[in-house]
């Protein structure tokens, strides 16, 4: 598996990710060990100005430790952290130009909303009028004007979340750090707040570093995503890159729903890779990882929304595997199929209602996809074990 593949540059979205001097935040080979345990194992990346940057990964991947090092709550064992070009690795939280939005919100319960928001500016010894102005601006940025005199306990979860955001924004930091801030909200509110956060980030023009384990959240809001696993960054790229050209099986399995099909690489050419899918057709894939070599075991990664079902065998050369339809679930605009292919292969297909094929559970059919949507990743046969399966959560 590739250790740290950085897909930076080339794409329009990553242009704003400034490197070196222009970066709001830089990590340089940062390592964090807790005794014997390596929580973060040498990660480096830059966060550009005004960039919405997400650290995405399962629990225990090191994303929260990384964020806490950025905030100053933990000191890196090795490596450097630069905030605004200045070394901040050893600075205490109150000495650095970052502010954090806590998962628990951490609002001061004995202070009103306005007092909470004013806490940061007051520590900076700003003039009283300036403090009041910042409180007003921050509260209006999160659309909580008129809530200044309330106590946190009198607010709903979503409102408390906004106060936490306003309090961090009032300090006008170079970088705002957010630790799963939407984790405690219910689904509907969470989706609303995703767009709200994005709007606020655009309006205030501050870099956001956003920690989450929710890939949907990361894809929706981020300019770039660093997918972390086992203390390293497995893939750094725009949401599109991470989704369509995952750098590793882990990334492919973690981001979105994925089906993995074992295959052997037959030829590598300028227009794509030719692979023989285990038990299926020999076909061409337009896109492949740079590490794919002829004759090696590989995996074709396909998203459920790109899989179509054909009752008859497609012509040779088209990407296809024979499958048995296990289940069919009507979900409104789409129909979800669960399919079983050769070997232990499990496939999921999300077919738009108007493209629905005449297949039903128990019927043998063919799963197909167009060459541009099959992404080929190098993988030894045993590497597939343990990677997120395509079993849809029904």
């Amino acid at each position, binding site marked *: 598996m590739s250790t740290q593949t950085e897909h930076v540059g080339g794409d329009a979205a990553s242009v704003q990710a400034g490197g070196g001097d222009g970066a709001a935040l830089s990590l340089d080979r940062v390592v964090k060990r807790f005794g014997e345990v390596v929580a973060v194992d040498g990660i480096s990346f830059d966060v550009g100005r005004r960039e919405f940057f997400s650290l995405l990964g399962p629990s225990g991947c090191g994303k929260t430790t990384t964020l806490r090092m950025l905030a100053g709550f933990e000191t890196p064992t090795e490596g450097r952290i630069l905030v605004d070009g200045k070394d901040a690795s050893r600075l205490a939280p*109150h000495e650095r130009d970052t502010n954090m939005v806590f998962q628990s919100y*951490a609002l*001061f319960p*004995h202070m009103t909303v306005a007092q909470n928001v004013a806490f940061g500016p007051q*520590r900076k010894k700003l003039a009283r009028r300036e403090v009041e102005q910042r409180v007003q601006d921050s509260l209006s940025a999160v659309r909580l004007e008129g809530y200044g005199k309330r106590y946190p306990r009198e607010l709903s979860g979503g409102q408390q979340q906004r106060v936490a955001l306003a309090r961090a924004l009032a300090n006008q930091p170079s970088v705002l750090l957010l630790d799963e801030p939407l984790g405690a909200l219910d689904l509907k509110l969470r989706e609303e707040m995703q767009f709200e956060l994005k709007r606020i980030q655009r309006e205030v023009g501050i870099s956001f570093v956003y920690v989450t384990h929710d890939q949907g959240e990361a894809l929706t809001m981020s300019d770039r995503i660093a997918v972390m696993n086992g203390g390293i960054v497995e893939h750094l790229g725009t949401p599109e890159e991470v989704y369509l050209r995952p750098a590793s099986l882990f990334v492919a399995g973690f981001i979105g729903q994925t089906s993995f099909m074992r295959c052997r690489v037959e030829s590598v050419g300028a227009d794509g890779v030719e692979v023989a899918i285990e038990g299926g057709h020999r076909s061409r894939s337009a896109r492949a990882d740079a590490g794919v070599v002829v004759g090696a075991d590989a995996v074709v990664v396909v998203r459920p929304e790109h899989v179509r079902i054909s009752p008859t065998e497609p012509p040779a050369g088209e990407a296809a595997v024979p499958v048995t339809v296990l289940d069919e679930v009507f979900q409104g605009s789409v129909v979800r199929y669960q399919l079983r292919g050769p070997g232990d292969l499990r496939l999921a297909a999300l077919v738009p209602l108007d493209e629905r094929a005449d297949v039903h559970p128990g019927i043998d059919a063919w799963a197909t996809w167009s060459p541009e949507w099959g992404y080929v990743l190098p993988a030894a046969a045993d590497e597939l074990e343990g990677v997120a399966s395509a079993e849809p959560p029904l």
Partner: protein
Amino acid sequence: MVATAPSVQPSSGETTRARPRGRWAGPIYSIAPTLVLVALFLGPMVILLYYSFQKASLAGAGGWTFDNYTSILTDPTYAKVMLTTIVICTISMLIMLAIGLPLAYILAMRTPPRFELLLLLMLVIAEELNPLIRIYAWRMILGRGGVINWTLQTIGLIDEPIDSLLFSSTAVIIVLSTTYISFTTIPIYAALKAVDPDLLEAADDLGASFFTTCRKILLPLAAPGIFVAIILVYIPLFSEFAAPALVGGTSGYMIGNAIQEAILESGNRGVGSAMSFMLLVLSGAVAWIGYRMAKIRRLQATS
């Protein structure tokens, strides 16, 4: 299945029938303890109040009078004893808060969970020590041939033992401030335990130094615990008589000693009762103020 069904029904029927009785059980059961409390606490208090308005007499009561109160309020000796008492109690209380606050903070926020219970237990066990043994231990430490004088003499800092260590108001303060450390620490610990540790990080993150965090976040949130500690500790301090009697000398003579002397040695039940009653009113006032403040602070902290 069929066999168990009938056995379930009667028992559930019984509980429904028992419910009306249950509604009255509370008041009925609480009558006895209420009567005991009235008899044991209110009774002596009424007797105290009665004696405080009686002329001194060997028989006990010699007719109604205000003399006991006027003599206390006009006699400068009593005023001085009262002042000494307030000063000693207040300084002791402040010393205990100065120790108890950081101790409670360390226990609640900076102690690894596996040591927390152990330390709490040690704090409680220390409290269980007999107060008299504690006082005699201090006499051994502070006395002429005590540990402190011996050490100072051995290293040559002083030639003659310092007499004023023992039998002084300082000695009383030292003894008293070590007596109620647990009662001061534990309520504050409880208040701080309810504080989300993220608040400290948030304050730090927003630019507050540790001192500012203590002043703006920890102290206000610990306030309910501090007021409870004051109620639990400050009031008993006022009626303290063993420590001042054993280590106080003349400068550590407190109102408790005055009451004891008036009643047990001078046989002046009237003045003793009047002083006791005034002490009771003072304690009540302190308790009421502390209670109100704890309540106000708690409302502020949670609403």
